[in-house]
């Protein structure tokens, strides 16, 4: 069967879902109208969390220049602002914007309205309340001590209810789809939709509610962190990539089977990673984990090949000027880099050096920010103008955001990775005093502060554009309502103000 042909029937190619397509315009407009409120809430709060994240991340980073910086107050100590930043980023931004993009894609690709948009909006509010309470708790000293699950137990019910309100209606939207044939993205997004509640409830129950004994806590925390960072983020991010890349290059996805293959590999083997080789656990666990991680190489290659064949050289002119596409391309590139760094870091000869160093955080940042956040920025810059029928108020800020974010993540992750390798190599020889090793890494850590600063500026630009768009939308909508009442003529909300 011709793999390209399998993308063709029923106008399933994402490239036919544009607003340019007049036949679909009315349908698309009504879909967008059903998504507008919940998506606006989700995206705006995600952007706000991003700004908060970078504030905390900057404080944490400056402490490497001067340990005494803001050290006098308990809530500003490194061990509190650092987890506050990472939790705000993971739960405030990543999951939230990932859910926003997923909801829109599930409605779009299923050609159906988003089910129960008011309840989804309520879910978003619960979610944000939970994350707010949780980050507050971390600053107050209630962090759980489990990486990627730092938000205290009392924030969990709100987060979980919020997720269910969003996820259940997302799944129902998927169920009610009028286009029965599934597009590639829908596999990824639907799997992601129910992946999270399972891993989250397992981790919550076995770490906080009925804690397991000793090292089992770490095993479950590693399992959870790996599933969240490398399975959930990959599934939700690649779901968006496989929609956006063909859509923005106006070409067919090349090809469906490669994507299906990547999907299966990620599901089957991605979820087996995460246990470091140095861990004080029976040796089969890190060994199995390394095997699973190494096998994800195949998925990386499949995704890379698929995106290359779809969006490689020879595309339409102007693709360089297409900013959402740039974000997505950068994201896919970093996805490959981060994925290979993760594979390398799981192989014993390398992990002997890189374990317990800055190499791990560099990989995580590259994956969560360089890949997932960048793809989501691209998606937000693509979805929101369609949703509102308006252009962003400051297009230059979008370009600035791209450069700030991409430079920022490179300046953040590259020095950290280098610091990790240097530190690991030096620690191998007991002749190097530990303080000397620390001093080797400090210059790298200081460079990464510049990366944090760039990213923070980018986040302010992102939030400003989103807020500006929302602020412009309502006057325009009121004006169009007024004119429709007075002139008794239909005038689309998408008219340029």
């Amino acid at each position, binding site marked *: 069967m011709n793999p390209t042909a399998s993308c063709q029937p029923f106008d399933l190619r994402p490239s036919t879902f544009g607003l340019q397509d007049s036949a679909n315009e009315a349908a698309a407009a009504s879909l967008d109208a059903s998504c507008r409120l919940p998506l606006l809430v989700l995206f705006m709060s995600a952007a706000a969390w991003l700004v908060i994240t970078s504030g905390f991340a900057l404080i944490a980073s400056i402490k490497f220049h001067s340990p*005494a910086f803001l050290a006098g107050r308990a809530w500003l100590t490194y061990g509190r602002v650092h987890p506050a930043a990472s939790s705000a980023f993971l739960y405030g931004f990543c999951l939230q914007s990932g859910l926003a993009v997923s909801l829109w894609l599930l409605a779009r690709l299923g050609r159906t309205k988003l089910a129960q948009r008011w309840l989804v909006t309520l879910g978003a509010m619960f979610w944000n309340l939970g994350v707010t309470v949780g980050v507050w708790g971390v600053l107050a000293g209630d962090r759980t001590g489990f990486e990627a699950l730092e938000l205290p137990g009392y924030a969990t019910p709100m987060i979980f209810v919020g997720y269910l309100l969003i996820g259940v209606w997302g799944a129902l939207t998927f169920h009610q789809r009028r286009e029965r044939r599934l597009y590639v993205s829908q596999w990824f997004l639907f799997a992601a939709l129910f992946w999270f509640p399972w891993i989250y409830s397992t981790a919550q129950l076995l770490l906080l509610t009925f804690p397991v004994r000793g090292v089992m806590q770490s095993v479950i925390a590693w399992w959870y962190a790996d599933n969240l960072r490398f399975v959930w983020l990959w599934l939700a991010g690649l779901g968006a990539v496989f929609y956006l890349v063909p859509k923005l290059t106006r070409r067919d996805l090349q090809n469906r089977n490669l994507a299906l293959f990547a999907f299966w590999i990620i599901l089957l083997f991605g979820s087996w990673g995460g246990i470091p080789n140095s861990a004080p656990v029976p040796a089969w666990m890190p060994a199995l984990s390394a095997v699973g991680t190494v096998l994800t190489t195949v998925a990386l290659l499949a995704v890379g090949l698929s995106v290359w064949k779809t969006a490689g050289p020879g595309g339409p002119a102007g693709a360089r000027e297409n900013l959402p596409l740039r974000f997505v391309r950068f994201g896919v590139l970093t996805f490959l880099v981060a994925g290979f760094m993760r594979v390398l870091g799981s192989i014993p000869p390398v992990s002997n050096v890189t374990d317990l160093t800055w190499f791990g955080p560099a990989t995580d940042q590259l994956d969560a920010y360089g890949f997932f956040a960048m793809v989501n920025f691209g998606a937000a810059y693509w979805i929101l103008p369609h949703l509102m029928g308006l252009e962003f108020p400051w297009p230059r800020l979008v370009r600035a955001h791209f450069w700030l974010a991409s430079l920022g993540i490179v300046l953040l992750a590259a020095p950290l990775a280098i610091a990790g390798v240097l530190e690991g190599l030096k620690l191998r*020889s007991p002749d190097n005093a530990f303080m000397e090793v620390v001093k080797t890494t400090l210059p790298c850590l200081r460079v990464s502060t510049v990366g944090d600063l760039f990213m923070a500026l980018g986040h302010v630009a992102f939030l400003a554009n989103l807020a500006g768009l929302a602020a412009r939308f309502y006057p325009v909508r009121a004006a169009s309502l007024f004119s429709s009442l007075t002139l008794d003529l239909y005038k689309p909300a998408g008219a340029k103000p």
Partner: protein
Amino acid sequence: MNYGPLLFLAAFFALATSWFGFVLTPQAQIGQLQPANMLGAPTLYPQARPGLARQGLEVYRANGCADCHTQQVRQSGTVCDVVLSDTGTNLPAVITALLKVKPGLSEPAARQWLEALRQPPPPTLDPRPSTLDPRPSSLLLQGLKPAEADAAVKVLNGAGAKAAVSIVPVGPDLARGWGKRRNVARDFIFDYPLALGSQRIGPDLANLSARQPDAGWHLRHLYAPRLEVKGSAMPPYRFLFEKRKIERRPSPDAMVLPRDLAPPPGYEIVPKPEAGALVAYLLSLRADAPLFEAPLTVAPVPGAAGATNAPAAPDLTAANAPAAPGATSTNAAPTNAPAK
């Protein structure tokens, strides 16, 4: 892959396998670990931490000490040392045996070493190894494979001496003095939340109390890290201390600080209960008991207690030069040098 239910089942199956592999199976294997007897001693290990130390773990968690400090010592392998615990009565035969198992050793050197070992220990009431003990280390051979060590022991015992094999874990972390053996799952069975840590921005703390048993050092280090460790990158934790007016008489807990950090006259700086608890926890950090799954030899050898784990190379192994009587034994220095 065009049916929702099929997609659901696929994802369900994939996640269920991973859950089975990394949640259920490990729980069945190590989720019920119990304390076990130490090797060679009828003592249960580990013991639950005392109550104050458990409160200290909460302070450790709340302030994210584990963000910068690991508690997992790694080891790259194990080697065998040969220790001569008794020189026997037949000196010429033992010397012949020594020359056989340790090529390169000269006969006068061997004789001198044996005679030095035979001297009685200096009279002392202190059971700990003393730096005044003039006798050399009884460590004979280092870094052997088990079969080689066994063969050497057989030769020496055949000559009437008493030799024993001691198991020594090795690796960069251990050479750095961060521990005597790797950490194993059993070390942590009483800890919640478990603070293994994932990054070494600061040194490993798994055996901190063995390196630095002084509570005052820890309090000063928490208050102003650079007082104790030059150029330390650790932030000061002054919010764990309070400055208060001296009431009728100064508190015995008041911190003794250099002039630039000292409080104004009439005031004193005392650790809050959290600081005390945290230090109690830090002082409870020690995981070097010999276990079945992480063997090492710690039994003191008569004549040179604790020789097997001496960090520096002792007399005979350092060079072929004979140990001069009166040379200080390297094994006697306790490992309480401050953290590097």
